[in-house]
């Protein structure tokens, strides 16, 4: 019987193996080609490198890759941090407190979910110009937080609404302030939701391109996606340098994904539990 089941499962494995090959082949080529000596890249497209040539990585590094990575880290970390803080406070008020206009505010925030950055790009750019935020980190951070809030608030709301009121009451009787309750009771219990929001927003912001393209033109402030495009322009025929810069900025994301895949899958699916 078990042999029969195994036999029956071969098509399933073959299908998944074939599909995985489609995903993995371009990624493997990326890594292999990035360490190939330049001549072999074109003359022997299918062969493994005869020697490992790390020159591409060196040229990418000298081209300012670290600066782009640092900018992305600063922008992503600040945006995610602010989104968690501001979204968490708002969701807590909506889920745990009673006040006039609660339903209205909640509906408005859900509706905001439907608005894409592309749909309001020009006036958003005008707004950023008006506050003199072009070519500043805040020119990216403030809009990123805004566009992350509807997601963060809906995820946190769904999480907070299930919190037992008794828990908060007990802490209040102990003389805890509302902020104290948030920090000492709510935050430690909300780690799964916080991880989901942080990962989802983190991936989005790390990879965001369109807004960065219109807000940042100063090379010193470019994020990784803008930096990669700049590399394409600067290293037109130096494929190994371009491939190295793609792999050096992509592989950390893949390693993070494999290491935290449970949290990633939850976060990417946009679910809170």
């Amino acid at each position: 019987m078990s042999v029969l089941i195994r036999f029956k499962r071969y098509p399933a494995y073959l299908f998944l193996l074939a599909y995985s090959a489609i995903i993995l082949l371009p990624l493997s080529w990326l890594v292999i080609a990035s360490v190939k000596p330049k001549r072999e890249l074109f003359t022997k497209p299918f062969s493994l490198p005869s020697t490992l040539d790390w020159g591409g990585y060196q040229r990418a590094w000298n081209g300012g890759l670290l600066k782009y990575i640092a900018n992305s880290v600063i922008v992503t970390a600040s945006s995610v941090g602010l989104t968690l803080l501001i979204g968490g406070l708002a969701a807590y008020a909506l889920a745990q407190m009673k006040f006039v206009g609660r339903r209205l505010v909640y509906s408005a925030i859900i509706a905001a979910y439907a608005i894409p950055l592309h749909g309001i790009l020009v006036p958003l750019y005008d707004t950023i110009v008006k506050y003199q935020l072009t070519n500043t980190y805040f020119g990216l951070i403030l809009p990123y937080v805004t566009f992350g809030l509807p997601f963060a608030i809906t995820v946190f709301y769904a999480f907070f609404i299930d919190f037992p009121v008794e828990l908060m009451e007990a802490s209040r009787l102990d003389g805890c302030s509302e902020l104290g309750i948030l920090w000492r009771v709510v935050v430690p219990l909300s780690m799964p939701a916080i991880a989901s929001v942080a990962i989802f927003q983190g991936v989005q912001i790390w990879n965001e391109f369109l807004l960065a393209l219109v807000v940042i033109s100063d090379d010193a402030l470019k994020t990784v996606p803008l930096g990669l495009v700049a590399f394409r322009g600067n290293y037109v025929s130096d494929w190994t340098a371009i491939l190295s810069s793609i792999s050096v900025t992509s592989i950390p994301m893949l390693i993070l994904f494999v290491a935290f895949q449970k949290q990633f899958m939850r976060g990417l699916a946009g679910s809170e539990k």
Partner: protein
Amino acid sequence: MSRVYFRRNNQVLPYLFLTPALVFLALFMAYPLTETVVKSFYAYDLTSRVLNLVGISNYIELVHDPMFQTAAKNAILFVIFSVLVQIPLGTVLAAVLDRGVTSNASLTFRTIIFSPLVLSIVAVGLLWQLILDPLVGLASAVVKAVGLHPPPLGWLGDPKIAIYVIMAIAFWQYIGFVTLLMFAGLQRIPEELYQAATLDGAGPITSFWYVSLPMVQNALIVTSLLTMIGALRVFDFVYILTGGGPANATQVPATMIYKEAFFLGRMGYANAVSVLLLLATVGLGFVQIRFSRHS
């Protein structure tokens, strides 16, 4: 019992907690949204602050603009093919991952299939651009190795096929998203339903068709909606791979907004494209809501 906590002297606190979020949403979303709609009836450029009221002439011009016709056609193609390719393939992958293989194998394959989701579109686009290089790219080498000819104008240089090549690359990266959402839906189906089906003599394909699919109908609708909205918003793939070319053949609404506003300086005109894009997004949402109520 009400879940909501209420204390008389604390009426200010909820508003205090909400204020930062509402300020952000007002400044960087609600205000630009209003401006987009209002200023789509004006003509103005990047530098001068002069606004000329032109009524609906931006919209009239759009209807006759060949670039917009191409952008709209490409957006519709993108939406249709996203649903026809990504949804079935992504769902079948999810079903096989859910019940076709051991749970260890499933986890390994899921890791592989979902991994492109964490990469930036810019990185993926640049990678494929090199693979598809007409002269020395890997794709042409593969095609030649099996005795065929690569397209003479290049994979991304032929206006007839370029948009489909872009789609294929987008699907390569994002089919995993459909699989991710559908897998989550399939995992919630109770095992007893499959046992009952097996007792009735159902094989894996029959079970998929009569047990799995009906149970994940809502997940399918939500996933389709997200896929369609994603297809309408495409920008990065086109910008990186073709920049909208050759000869504007791969323009989509978002690249057209960018080009009109930031290259041609026609901000009002770009706003009109934005408004139509927003309306299409909202329209899709309504169709999906109605569809899910009827089923």
